[in-house]
């Protein structure tokens, strides 16, 4: 922000009543040799919900972090409510009324939900101790905003480490809301939320808008953007390319601005094939919250797992992969009984698991992109010597098939944008050549183009005889890709949808139980 070097964040002159909430002009940001932003521009009016869209790695998170004081801009100027500012730390931005939902979450796993939400702003007694009663009560009031959609176990004293990815996302949302900001930036805050949670979240955002709060909303789900937002700014390769009124545009035009033309995959229609013998059969398996789950998946089939978030879909996938124990029931692979006690057993049998919870399950933090790509292949192929010469081109090929954007394979994984990190973790498992692919909300954070590429690839895999089990928090994605859907509720399968019942109406009705 060299344009206004003489202006400190504090003390602030009286607010100019007419200035927009955020005005970012010509923002440039370089990380060493990598230019993340070449010309970031964003103008957000007061009391507006403003979408910020663009493909993975185009600079949305970087721009957000500059506005929130986490990164310093290399050049450019930033005005908040008409006043030029230069934030040196997130705390200064917070003092100016700005709060950011961090795409990769800013939570501390070993601390409680309450401690996380009020971190650095704990209510205190007069003696300076944490006022636990108030801390708990205020946290409970915040959790109540999400009502019963928050799911079991989201209490003020629960440890964040013990929550589901969706619940962690809710905690990060509540942390932002608890600061009562005048300007909020939601960087893919809905990525792991189910339809019901998204609805509650949008109601909250609309209520805040009515109270004059300005919101920047980042999402790869265009339906959400068009349902919620007033204006939209589109970015491409670190540059802002458009600023439009939502009413004056449509989804196709926005997609074209973001990434050019995308081939729309449409609904999967299954080629008639002779019914193959099932690859995997589960007979009344249980453990943790799971009860009596019986299912079979055949080579070439894509089996969807539906229902509200946290009803046992992830638990089942993790159980099948040996990451969490399945304590009851039996598994058969190719008709033979198997026990999968640990992920190593699963990998040895050709099972791969792609998790959407990349921070907890996938990232080898601080290691290179190459190491992150190679992790599963090295286990699968029992390699004790890494022949980078042969392995690297192969892995780079898989990563390229998903259009992963990175500078060099030796760069640290943390330098990638959220969506590009997720592509690396998908490629990690595709490279093992699995027979059974378990997908646990795999598209969390990846853009429309990459999503289309991923599902084209997954259909190809299915056609070549791989069995696939897919859970997605996004209903349309599930309906488009699955041959059949098992709907989960409370850790059990309540219905199977296929053929004529495979539609949004039946899926919603089954997911909500008899209430809907």
């Amino acid at each position, binding site marked *: 922000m060299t344009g206004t070097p003489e202006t400190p964040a504090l003390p602030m002159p009286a607010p100019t009543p007419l200035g927009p909430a955020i005005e970012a002009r010509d923002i440039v940001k370089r990380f060493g040799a990598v230019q993340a932003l070449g010309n970031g521009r964003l103008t957000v009016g007061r009391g507006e919900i403003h979408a910020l869209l663009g493909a993975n790695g185009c600079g949305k998170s970087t721009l957000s972090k500059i506005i*929130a004081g*986490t990164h310093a801009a290399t050049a450019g100027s930033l005005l908040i409510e008409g006043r030029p500012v230069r934030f040196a*730390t*997130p*705390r200064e931005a*917070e003092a100016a009324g700005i709060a*950011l939902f*961090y795409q990769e*979450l*800013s*939570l*501390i*796993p*070993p*601390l409680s939900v309450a*401690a996380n939400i009020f*971190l*650095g*702003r*704990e209510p*205190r007694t007069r003696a*300076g*101790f*944490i006022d636990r009663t108030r801390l708990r009560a205020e946290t409970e009031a915040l959790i109540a905003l999400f009502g019963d959609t928050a799911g079991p176990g989201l209490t003020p004293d629960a440890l964040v480490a013990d929550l589901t990815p969706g619940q962690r996302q809710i905690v990060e949302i509540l*942390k932002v809301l608890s600061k009562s900001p005048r300007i909020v930036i939601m960087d893919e805050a809905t990525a792991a939320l189910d339809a019901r949670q998204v609805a509650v979240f949008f109601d909250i955002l609309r209520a805040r808008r009515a109270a004059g709060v300005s919101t920047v909303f980042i999402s790869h789900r265009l339906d959400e953007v068009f349902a919620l937002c007033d204006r939209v700014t589109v970015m491409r390769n670190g540059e802002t390319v458009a600023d439009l009124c939502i009413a004056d545009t449509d989804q196709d035009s926005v997609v074209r601005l973001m990434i050019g033309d995308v081939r729309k995959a449409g609904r999967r229609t299954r080629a008639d094939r002779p019914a193959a013998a099932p690859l995997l059969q589960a007979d009344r398996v249980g453990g943790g919250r799971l009860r009596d789950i019986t299912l079979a998946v055949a080579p070439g089939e894509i089996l969807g797992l539906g229902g509200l978030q946290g009803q046992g879909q992830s638990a089942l996938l993790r159980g099948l992969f040996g990451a969490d*124990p399945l*304590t009851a029931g039996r598994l058969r692979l190719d008709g033979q009984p198997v026990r999968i*006690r640990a992920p190593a057993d699963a990998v040895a049998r050709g099972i791969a698991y792609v998790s959407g919870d990349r921070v907890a399950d996938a990232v080898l933090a601080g290691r290179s992109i190459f190491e992150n790509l190679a992790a599963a292949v090295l286990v699968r192929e029992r390699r004790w010597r890494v022949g980078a010469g042969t392995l690297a081109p192969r892995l780079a090929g898989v990563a390229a098939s998903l259009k992963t954007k990175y500078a060099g394979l030796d760069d640290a994984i943390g330098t990638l944008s959220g969506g590009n990190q997720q592509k690396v973790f998908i490629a990690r498992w595709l490279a093992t050549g699995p027979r059974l692919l378990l997908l646990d909300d795999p598209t969390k954070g990846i853009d429309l183009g990459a999503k289309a590429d991923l599902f084209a690839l997954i259909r190809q895999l299915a056609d070549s005889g791989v069995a696939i089990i897919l859970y997605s928090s996004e209903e349309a994605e599930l309906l488009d890709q699955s041959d059949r859907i098992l709907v989960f509720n409370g850790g059990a399968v309540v219905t199977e949808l296929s053929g004529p019942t495979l539609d949004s109406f039946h899926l919603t009705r089954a997911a909500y139980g008899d209430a809907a």
Partner: protein
Amino acid sequence: MKRALPSALSALPAALPAWAITAAALTVLVIVNGLLQPGFFDGTVLQSNLTTFLPLVLVAIGQTYVVLAGDIDLSVGAVAALVNVVTVTVIAATGDGPDAILAGLAAGLAVALACGLVNGLLIGVVGLQPMVATFGTAILFSALALRILPQAGLPVPDAYWQTYGGAVLGLPTVLLILLLAIGFVALLARRPFQTWLKAVGGNRGGAFQSGLDLRRIRLSAYLISALFAGFAALCLTGETASGDPLLGQSLGLGSVSAVALGGTLLSGGVGGAAGSILGALLLGMIGNVIFFAGLPFEYQTLVQGLIVLAALAGGVLVARRR
């Protein structure tokens, strides 16, 4: 995971904290020691044992805060030595009345804080690796201690060690110090500061994004650690009644072991100083039992190492069941 563990362990309540094994081991050792050593539960024997254990307890308390923030302080032993020689030198130079003793104590603690400030600035502000930086400053502090007092000597006035070995306000001084330390631990546990430390150790990036001032928090932890090393040095001075530039060399790794035994994760973010007190007492009791069991000296370190490993492994197993 569950099936692989001994069934006895699975039968324990799920909420068992990681320091429970340490507490159990400590209880067993207290009983064994009571059987081996006649009069173990007599007041004077307890007091003399506490006198032996107290320095490590204090250093371990201070070390906990550094470890919670994801850092480590290997310089505590050298800080203790430096404080000891500064204190005895200042007392010797000022006379031998109560004023001289107070001046010595104040000078010692001021030096401790200065050491903590050096560590905290190097690590929290300059950004050096904690392990390397405190290893380096330890050498520096030791060298300073040797420069000030090249050889052990300089006895302190009688009033110093008599007060330390005696009683204040009707309580044995060592017990009073322990109670004050426990009070400090209990108070700090309820302040936001301890949550911030855990945040810094649990997810440093997240702590920064949450608006915490990482520099100040990490620096404060090093100040506390050095201050407690200073207290430990003043206690050791009361015990040995003189200066020794090579004092306290086992305090560094000893305190880290005590912290780990007390259930604080060395990677930071989880734990508390109450466990470290148990851990330090356990380490002390191990030495005691080995001595009274009449084990040859060569085996003492071996057995001590084995017990520490067993307690740590037990703690890990308990923690992993969750």
